[in-house]
């Protein structure tokens, strides 16, 4: 416990933000946080922590271990702001964008391009993986299973992989920066869902289909690697104790 009056207490490299005594970073931690993204992350979270500390000191509410705010005004003002934003965006776009409601579909004619609803594009794209279905030389170049069977099997594999994830990772991280690897897996998966959706509408995509096919599998890897690198760099400036204090649950006195 050092004294706040001493000028040496500035331990954060001159941001004007002074961490409390029990969270003062060590010299090696400070050295790691000197530049770039770790420094930015550190300053961001330290500022948030300091604001929270000031709010607690000014507050007339009883200090609790679980941070809770009254519904009015805190929660409702925030919800009103968000609601106003989305209502305003709806009004703006509906007033300014030109698309009209088209003619009703003709039930007696089949359209040239048949697609499911957009949120099922990823599954529809998995049915189009016939290029990956290997021709086996032992069978005289025949395929072990039909392309359509292969596509259904791809759906089983993907859904199975998603179902396994909760058993591999219990989700104890509060922020992606705490577990860069799993965050990278998640970003790669989201990107894969997107690229797979683009592959499923390859008929109307304005680009080369084989390039699209390659990008479908390369883009998720690239995005995952970038996510991992960025989060791994950010983690050097991250304060784990911050979340532990925010979310620690203790029974009321």
């Amino acid at each position, binding site marked *: 416990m050092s004294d706040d009056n001493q000028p040496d207490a500035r331990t954060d490299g001159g941001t004007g933000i002074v961490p409390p005594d029990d969270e003062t970073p060590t010299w090696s931690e400070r050295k790691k946080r000197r530049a770039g993204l770790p420094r*930015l992350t550190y*300053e*961001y979270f330290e500022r948030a922590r300091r604001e929270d500390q000031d709010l607690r000191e000014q507050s007339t509410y009883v200090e609790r271990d679980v941070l809770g705010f009254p519904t009015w005004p805190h929660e409702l003002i925030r919800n009103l702001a968000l609601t106003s934003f989305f209502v305003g965006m709806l009004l703006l*776009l509906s007033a*300014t*964008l*030109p*698309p009209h409601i088209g003619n009703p579909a003709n039930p007696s004619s089949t359209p040239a391009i048949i697609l499911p609803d957009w949120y099922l594009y990823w599954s529809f794209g998995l049915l189009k993986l016939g290029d990956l279905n290997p021709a086996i030389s032992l069978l005289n170049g025949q395929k072990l299973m039909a392309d359509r069977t292969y596509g259904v099997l791809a759906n089983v594999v993907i859904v199975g992989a998603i179902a396994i994830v909760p058993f591999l990772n219990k989700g104890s991280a509060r922020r992606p920066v705490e577990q860069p690897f799993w965050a990278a897996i998640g970003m790669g998966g989201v990107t894969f869902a997107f690229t797979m959706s683009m592959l499923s509408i390859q008929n*109307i*995509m*304005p680009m080369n289909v084989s390039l699209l096919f390659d990008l479908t599998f390369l883009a998720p890897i690239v995005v995952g690697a970038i996510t991992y690198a960025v989060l791994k760099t950010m983690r050097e400036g991250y304060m784990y104790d911050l979340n532990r204090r925010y979310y620690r649950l203790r029974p009321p006195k």
Partner: protein
Amino acid sequence: MADEFMKGFGLFSVAALVWMISASWYRTPSFESTRQLVAAPPEEPGTVFDTLGIFLGDLMFWTALLGAFTFWVIIPATRQAREALVVDE
């Protein structure tokens, strides 16, 4: 630095929104086509308002790109360069 990110992001998103509205009017021949928002605008704009709309769209397009580039790249790079040039005491 975080504030600079937010300034660039705000410029980018607001200008891109206005650009999208303009391009959906003037750079989209049909909403059934595969060239939406990127097709060439009409050669002969009917009224002065159409001319203004096309110009506003172009203006917002470059505002989005250059605004984000300024606040995300140029200003931080200038600061880094200045810090590197100034001799520490």
